[in-house]
């Protein structure tokens, strides 16, 4: 039992953190909004060059074979920076589930995906609107009964707007030449759901941390009654409540990541747990951060909403809080003898 990160894991986290601090500042995100092009090709190219996008591909496919815990630590930073490119919940997800895909789909993906330079989108009932299709080489469509791959040129699609302008969502209006597989997708589906759940959980915890950091700075700066508003207990307590939520959500993310990398049979439960805790932390972070910012928090000008909007989307996608509660309850009520005080690990 050694529940701490290795130096290497911390290095990966720090490296992506400083990269994003440089390359993904609020101004650059807003620039994407203005140009209706939130997928920043320059940044994407740099992420490829750094090897980030192929982190979790096996070494024989040019990746680092990175396990889930390091991945989650990096994704947390992507949340913190509000990274618009869908690295976590699309690229990392797709990389990770390639081994679970039917053979013909894998082949199709890989032929469109050489050297990880291309972006493949994925749609699933838990996140049905594919992201950035105009930047994608193709789309994996997955539900309970089928799995398809459609190359970009074989489909027509239209953009649908998201409440988070950093997320360009699409709807496929027609397709042809789809490569189809229809067999039993239970295993694939659970692999995809668990990873989507974990990735959004890790993003959310980063987003929550960002919001509370922004708020802490703001309440130090803003004065009323002759003092920084952060000296008032009502304000302190709001932010402290968020800090508590974040503190107890984080280890759930790391445990869920660890479970996935160890193929723990309870990993679906652990991912649901992580998402539940992170969604709650992020929800309170949104509410109390906007409140701490006062009317400024309700403006377009303040950067807070860049992260708040992403958090709202991440809460909704890949199973919201209620969905996770349902998953947890189903597990608890069917196998109660293996849960509780002795079965955390």
């Amino acid at each position, binding site marked *: 039992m050694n529940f701490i990160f290795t130096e290497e894991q911390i290095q990966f986290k720090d490296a992506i953190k400083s990269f994003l601090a440089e390359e993904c500042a609020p101004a650059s995100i807003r620039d994407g909004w203005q140009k209706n092009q939130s997928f920043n090709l320059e940044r994407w190219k740099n992420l490829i060059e750094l090897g980030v996008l192929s982190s979790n591909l096996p070494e024989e496919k040019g990746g680092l074979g990175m396990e889930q815990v390091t991945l989650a630590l990096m994704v947390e930073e992507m949340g913190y920076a509000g990274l618009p490119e869908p690295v976590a919940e699309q690229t990392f997800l797709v990389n990770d589930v390639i081994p679970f895909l039917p053979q013909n789909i894998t082949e199709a993906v890989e032929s469109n995906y050489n050297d990880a330079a291309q972006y493949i989108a994925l749609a699933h009932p838990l996140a049905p609107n594919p992201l950035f299709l105009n930047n994608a080489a193709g789309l994996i469509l997955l539900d309970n009964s089928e799995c398809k791959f459609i190359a970009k040129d074989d489909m027509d699609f239209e953009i649908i707007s998201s409440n988070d302008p950093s997320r360009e969502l699409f709807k496929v209006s027609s397709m042809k030449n789809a490569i189809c597989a229809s067999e039993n997708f239970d295993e694939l589906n659970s692999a995809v759901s668990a990873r989507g759940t974990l990735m959004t959980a890790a993003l959310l915890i980063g987003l929550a941390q960002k919001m509370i950091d922004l708020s802490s700075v703001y309440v130090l700066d803003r004065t009323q009654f002759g003092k920084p508003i952060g000296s008032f207990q009502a304000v302190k307590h709001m932010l402290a409540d968020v800090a508590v939520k974040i503190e107890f959500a984080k280890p759930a993310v790391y445990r869920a990541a660890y479970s996935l990398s160890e193929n723990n049979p309870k990993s679906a439960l652990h991912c649901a*747990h992580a998402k539940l805790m992170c969604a709650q932390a992020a929800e309170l972070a949104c509410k109390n951060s906007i409140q701490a910012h006062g009317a400024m928090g309700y403006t377009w000008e303040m950067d807070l909403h860049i992260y708040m909007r992403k958090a709202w989307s991440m809460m909704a996608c890949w199973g919201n809080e209620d969905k996770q509660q349902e998953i947890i309850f189903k597990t*608890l009520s069917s196998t109660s003898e293996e849960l509780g*005080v002795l079965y955390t690990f």
Partner: protein
Amino acid sequence: MKINFTNEQNIFRDEVRTWLESNVPKTPLLSLDTKEGFEQHREWERTLNEGNWSMVTWPKDYGGRGLDLIQWLIFEEEYYRAEAPTRVNQNGVFLLGPTLMEFGTHEQKSKFLNAMATGDHIWAQGWSEPGAGSDMAAIRTTAVLEGDYYKINGQKTWSSRAAYADWTFGLFRTDLDSERHRGLSFILVPLDLPGITVRPIPQLDGEPGFAEIYFDDVKVPLENLLGGDGEGWKIAMATAGFERGLMLRSPARFQQTASKLLELYLANQDDCSPMIQAKVVEAWAQSESYALSIYHTASKMLAGGSIGSESSLGKIFWSELDHMMHQTALKILGASAELSQESKNDAAKWIKGFMFSYAGPIYAGTNEIQKNIIAERLLGLPR
């Protein structure tokens, strides 16, 4: 990162389990807040000590097993699973014990730790005073050094276990000209000294879990000073850290309550509103998170880290969780949630726990004080 138990840890778990299975009293002890129950619990402390289980993390020289924090957490998991009696000496073994280990002289350690382990000294806390609650630096009880003893005058209150305990530890003002947290000293006081009057205070459940202690020219030998004269505040903060954090509030207690709550819900599901289900899930999810967080912290400490203001985060989390779980249990119990005698579903036990869960957000520093600490020390907000 490797978050599985090792073989050695599993073997240790089995050893704890086997011992507890044959030693935990078959019928529950009386409440430790009654005279008779207190002595039963003292007896249990003796039994634990005979098995060498008083405090597994203490060095062997002081009656412990020299084990690490992970093994401590495993011990606690088994302890709660076995529904073993509440530790009547928790003020001693979980709070004063680690404090002595850090600040005590060799003589103090051998005298007090051993007597603590054997159950001969059951400890009470002596922090609060009528004018010093959340504002603990407002302490006014004085201890004036006269030759080789301190003469203590004043009053302590909300002193947990003091109704029947043998000793108390607390903060006293040794520098009469000092203010606030300066000039305080950490002194260990036997409660049977002349000049001491203990007045038990019945708690919400009707039993005297805490007491007032009056000091009238009480003479305490100088050797009972822990750390240096005037260093009391620093030492008390370390003790408070143990109280808020992982020693006293190990996760097993809350996980055990969450499991019981799930059991209670599953047995009564048909009579419950569907809204309850989400609370039951919350109970599991939060107690699980608390456990993960504590193992994370314990691992950090084993790697040489230390725990500071972070313990305030945990204190808020477990105390709110404990209350939420008991509140949920009472909702499941429906109309029987007012029965204080033995009945179906252990209603009386839940009600007792429910009332006690109101104490959590108050003791060990109110949650409001903890939030100030978090805001000021972790988020960098101004005082």
